[in-house]
């Protein structure tokens, strides 16, 4: 029995499953190894405020839930805003060190980090690089190509000419038919520019991705699920682990939604992503109070 079949039968343990056939694999008639990874995003470690009275407890709850998965994921990705911003460089590093220590509780030891603007914009990624390594990179896993982009270290939230040139060179090495997963913090397409929910030169990145037939983008930043296609490219944003934000364009400003004591942790969550098979499947999990 495939793990996916088992999840369907088991009722997902509280998660919700979604499939998309587009960015699938099984190319050239050769089945790939199925696997799954976990995406966590926007943990904002160091945040204090009414929108989450359990700010120091939410991330550990998510980590405990990931550790409790019946079959461990192959790896975990954090798509930015690991920490909440601070003007104090020492405090920024302290928050990152504390975050790293907490994340060290994950049983899965392959963990990939990406910066968000809260981590990297004020010092152009200096502290992030010290603590977590490069801000953009590529890796492969069981026949699926992954490319992690940095659209935050530039305070103007651009990828920049240097990264775009690197991206072009890396993509040129890949079979355009092969499955490609792109990870980033901010949306690469103009979701809500008046809320700064875009990447200033994201169109250039999308143009580079267009020749690739099976592309799926997973990102964060907007603290909620959102699913959109640009051409044949699927974009999926993740829920946050600190506070939810309003649905795109529905409020005056993109400010946190108030904590509801009657429904604590509402709007917070994380996801599993099944890859390597014929379909990319997302299993969305909320945060439980227990």
């Amino acid at each position, binding site marked *: 029995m495939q793990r996916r079949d088992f999840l369907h039968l088991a009722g997902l343990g509280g998660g919700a499953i979604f499939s998309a056939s587009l960015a699938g694999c099984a190319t050239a008639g050769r089945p790939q190894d199925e696997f799954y990874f976990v995406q966590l995003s926007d943990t904002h470690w160091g945040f204090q405020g009414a929108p989450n009275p359990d700010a120091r407890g939410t991330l550990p709850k998510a980590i405990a839930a990931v550790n409790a998965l019946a079959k461990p994921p192959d790896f975990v990705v954090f798509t930015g805003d690991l920490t*909440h911003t601070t*003007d104090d460089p020492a405090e920024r590093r302290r928050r990152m060190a504390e975050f790293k220590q907490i994340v060290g509780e994950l049983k899965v030891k392959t963990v990939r980090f990406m910066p968000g603007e809260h981590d990297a914009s*004020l010092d152009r990624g200096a502290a992030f690089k010290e603590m977590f390594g490069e801000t953009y990179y590529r890796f492969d896993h069981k026949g699926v190509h992954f490319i992690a982009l940095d659209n935050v270290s530039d*305070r*103007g939230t651009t990828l920049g000419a240097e990264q775009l040139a690197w991206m072009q060179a890396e993509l040129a090495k890949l079979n355009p038919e092969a499955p490609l997963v792109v990870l980033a913090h901010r949306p690469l397409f103009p979701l809500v*520019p*008046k*809320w*700064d929910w875009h990447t200033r030169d994201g169109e250039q990145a999308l143009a580079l991705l267009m020749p690739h037939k099976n592309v799926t983008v997973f990102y964060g930043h907007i603290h909620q699920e959102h699913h959109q296609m640009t051409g044949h490219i699927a974009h999926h944003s993740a829920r946050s682990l600190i506070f939810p934000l309003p649905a795109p364009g529905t409020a005056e400003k993109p*400010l946190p939604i108030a904590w509801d004591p009657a429904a604590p942790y509402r709007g917070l969550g994380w996801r599993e992503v099944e890859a390597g098979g014929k379909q990319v499947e997302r299993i969305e999990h909320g945060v439980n109070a227990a």
Partner: protein
Amino acid sequence: MKRRHVLLMAAAGAALTAARAQGPREIEITAQRFKFTPSEIPLKAGEPVVLLIRSLDFAHGFFVPDLDLRTDLMPGRVTRLALTPKAPGRLAFLCDNFCGDGHEGMDGHFDIT
């Protein structure tokens, strides 16, 4: 200084004043973490204006998405930005250079009548 030079300078100054008086209306805006002052600016459709934007503390951005108009605001400098709103309505502007804890609320709008 000879009297003729003084007269010439005075004339030049008057011409400059007249030109400014006939030019677009100028609107001064201050950018400072994490607000624009003023943040609500009335404009008239069809009236050209020049924004004189001064940042006090950071290289903020000034972005008007609906006009695809943006600029960086270097601290200590006045940045001039000309615009002519075409139709009545509301135009949002915001800082689009991440400037810290409060950046997400640094915005404003033009009310165009």
